[in-house]
C-alpha cells in the first residue's frame, strides 16, 4: 500500500503548555495549521501513523544513544505537566520496519520500553484523528552528538518508503521537529530564519533531495539539528513539492507546518 499522507510539524512544548513569554496569537495560528493537518489526515484514512521524531533525551539517556530506532512495544506512553499520553503501537508494522530495515543495511535499535518524548505527542495532541489510530514511533538522534549524517537520514527514509510500499497498511508519516531554534544556548533568542525560508522555498520546488547534502555542522549552525527528521521524511516522499501550511517564527523558534502530496 502506498504512503497516503506526509506532513512535517513543529513540536515545541510552548504550543502545548504556553508560558507567558509566548505570543498567544502566534500559538493559535500554529494550532489552526495543526487543525488543517488533522482534517487532511482523517481524509487520507490511514490505518497507522508513523511519527519520525528526535528524542529530547527523554526515552534514551546516555546509557544508550541510538542513531536510528523504532519503538516496538504494545503502548507508547509519556507525560508533560498535567498531560498523560498513551498510544497503541502498530506492532506488526513496527516489527516489519525493524526487521526489513536491518535486512536493508540499517542497523536499527529497537525498544519495547522507553518513555515517549514530547516530540511525538505534541503533534499528535493536535492532529490525531478520531477514532485514534495506532502509531509507530521512529527515532532519529538529533541532540546527542555524533548524530546520524543527513545523507544517512535521507537514505533511511528511502528504505522506509520501500518497506511501507510493500505493506498492506495505509500509512501516514509525520516528521516532527524544527525549524530553527537553539534551546539552552546563547543563540536562543536569535534563530536562523533566513535558513528556514530558503529551505521552505526549496522544498516547495520539490528539491528535498538537496537536504541530503547538508552537513551536520551546517545543521548545528542553523539551529536545525532536528531537520534530520524532515530529511528522513524527504527520503520517503522523494521529489514531491511541499505545501507550506504555515511558517510562524516566534522570538525563539521557527514553527513550520508542511504537507506533501503522496
Amino acid at each position, binding site marked *: 500500500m502506498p504512503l497516503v499522507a506526509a506532513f512535517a510539524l513543529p513540536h515545541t512544548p510552548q504550543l*502545548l503548555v504556553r508560558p507567558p513569554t509566548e505570543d498567544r496569537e502566534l500559538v493559535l495560528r500554529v494550532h489552526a495549521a495543526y487543525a488543517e493537518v488533522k482534517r487532511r489526515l482523517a481524509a487520507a484514512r490511514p490505518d497507522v501513523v508513523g511519527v519520525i521524531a528526535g528524542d529530547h*533525551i*527523554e526515552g534514551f*539517556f546516555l546509557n544508550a544513544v541510538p542513531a536510528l530506532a523504532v519503538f516496538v512495544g504494545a503502548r507508547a506512553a509519556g507525560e508533560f*505537566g498535567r498531560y498523560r499520553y498513551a498510544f497503541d503501537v502498530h506492532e506488526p508494522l513496527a516489527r516489519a520496519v525493524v526487521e526489513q530495515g536491518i535486512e536493508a543495511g540499517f542497523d536499527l535499535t529497537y525498544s519495547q520500553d522507553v518513555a515517549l518524548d514530547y516530540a511525538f505527542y505534541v503533534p499528535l495532541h493536535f492532529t490525531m484523528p478520531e477514532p485514534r489510530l495506532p502509531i509507530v514511533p521512529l527515532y532519529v538522534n538529533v541532540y*546527542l*552528538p555524533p548524530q546520524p549524517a543527513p545523507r544517512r537520514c535521507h537514505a533511511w527514509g528511502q528504505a522506509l518508503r520501500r518497506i511501507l510500499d510493500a505493506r498492506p497498511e495505509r500509512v501516514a508519516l509525520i516528521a516532527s521537529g524544527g525549524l530553527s531554534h537553539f534551546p*539552552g*544556548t546563547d*543563540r536562543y533568542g536569535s534563530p536562523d530564519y533566513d535558513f528556514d525560508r530558503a529551505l521552505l522555498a526549496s522544498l516547495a520546488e520539490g528539491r528535498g533531495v538537496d537536504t541530503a547534502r547538508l552537513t551536520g555542522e551546517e545543521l548545528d549552525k542553523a539551529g536545525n539539528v532536528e531537520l534530520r527528521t524532515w530529511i528522513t521524511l524527504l527520503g520517503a516522499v522523494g521529489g514531491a513539492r511541499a505545501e507550506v501550511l504555515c511558517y510562524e517564527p516566534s522570538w525563539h523558534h521557527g514553527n513550520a507546518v508542511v504537507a506533501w502530496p503522496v
Partner: protein
Amino acid sequence: MSAVESHYFFPPASAYALNRFLFALKSDTAVRDRYVAQPEATMREHGLDDEARAALVAADRDRLVALGAHPYLVFMAQVRLTMSREPGSFEYF
C-alpha cells in the same frame, strides 16, 4: 567539529553526574519535587561536586555548559522547574 564550536556537543564523561541529575530534574517528578524542597541535599545525593552545585543553584547556564552540561538538559530542567514552581502562569491547550 570541535566541542567548543558546536551548540550541541559531545557530552564529556566528566559531566555524567551533572547530566544525569539534569535529566532527572527534567523527567523525574519525584526528584524535581525533592530538589525544589531541598536543593542542596538532593544535589549531594546525586553526587554533584561543589562547582556543579553552585552553578545549578545559581541557574548559571553558561557555567553549567562550561562544565559539560548538555544545553538542552539545562534548558528543559529549568522549564520543568518553572512549571512546578509557577503552575498558574502556564496555559494548557
